[in-house]
């Protein structure tokens, strides 16, 4: 779940700051489609911010097609901004093949490679959060 903050020195009005933080979270994959944004009341209670400011930010994001308000439920992410440029997958695959060859040469079998990858992913995710 996204946690908002306000930067008084940014020069951006609060509602634009909230919109930018959601976009940034989508860009780096910290928020994904289906995920709920904090309720207006949660944001208001945390930041001591005007409720209409939060509503305005959420409406702006809805207009951009990034989120969707579901009446009675809240506001949910519907689109992701993580769209890698063309050719990215092929390049990543080539790099991964090189790494796999190296891992196999070092004596790791398939199961330990999968385990190694998932534990590294977890560590990286924790580092991003911290």
């Amino acid at each position, binding site marked *: 779940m996204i946690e908002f903050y*306000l930067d*008084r020195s940014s*020069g951006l009005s609060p509602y634009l700051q909230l919109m930018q933080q959601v976009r940034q979270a989508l860009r780096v994959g910290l928020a994904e489609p289906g995920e709920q944004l904090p309720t*207006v*009341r949660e944001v*208001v*209670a945390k*930041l001591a911010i005007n*409720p*209409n400011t939060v509503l305005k930010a959420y409406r702006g994001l809805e207009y951009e097609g990034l989120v969707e308000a579901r009446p009675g439920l809240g506001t949910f992410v519907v689109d992701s901004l993580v769209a890698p440029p063309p050719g990215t997958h092929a390049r990543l695959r080539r790099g991964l093949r090189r790494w796999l060859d190296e891992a196999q040469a070092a004596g790791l079998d398939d199961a330990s490679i999968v385990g190694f990858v998932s534990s590294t992913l977890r560590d990286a995710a924790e580092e991003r959060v911290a």
Partner: protein
Amino acid sequence: MNALAAHGLGKRYGEHWALRNCSLEVPAGRVVGLVGPNGAGKTTLLQLAVGLLAPSTGTIEVLGLAPGKSREALARVGFVAQDAPLYPDFTVGETLTIGRRLNERWNQDWAERRLAGLSIPLEKPVGQLSGGQRAQVALVLALGKQPELVLLDEPVARLDPLARREFLQSLLDAAVEHGLTVVLSSHLISDLERTCDFLILLRDAEVRLSGAIDDLVERHRLLVGPRGRSTAGAGIARTIRESHTDKQSTLLVETAGPVGDPAWESHVVDLEELVLAYLGEPNEPRRPVDVLHRVEARA
């Protein structure tokens, strides 16, 4: 419906006008910041709105009702007076009892839950609470009667920054929960900038500026250009504040459409600059009534 509406409202004490020519409309659901220097009429306006004062001229309505004359207006409007006056010898619980006995629509459950959430013990005498806790109790007392409009006179002026933040969090949380309209007077523009979406600015007993903050900000610009440049035709409705160096002029203006003259570099202003410009406002030509008043005051 308007939560608050005033037309030609004035309050006079002998020769002295505490508030005059006050006309404004505040739509329901807004969080309104009431700003102005001491003695500008903020407290007078709030006390007129709750019926503690009667107007000398004009009318004021809250939620479509005349304050001070209607029992319904009393029930639907909450008020926290300056310095949150409470009985220091009463415990918090006894203070809630006053609220319960004096109000028709009192929500004891909500009040107790809210105080428990703030870790304020019911058995403690009010006089032994911190300033922040006392302010919170006064807020619970004002909101426990389940008003639709709540007016607060300088509620955070004497609180430290943390208590101030916590108070505003409580207030805004309740505003969302109950769909309240809130009017609060304050000196702290930085607090107002994040909490309020509507502004009323008083100076010298008159309303100088009022409206939705987004609209007000959108309507004003800071223009920087060569000194002596004419502002004619530049899309300027009026100049609020100006300053000059040898070569350069800086104007804070209310615009009337886009600023057409490319010699003027146009900047967006923030709320604080806007408020300070209107509070400073040395250049505004005085209207005859003002001059007259000054003469009277001196005599």
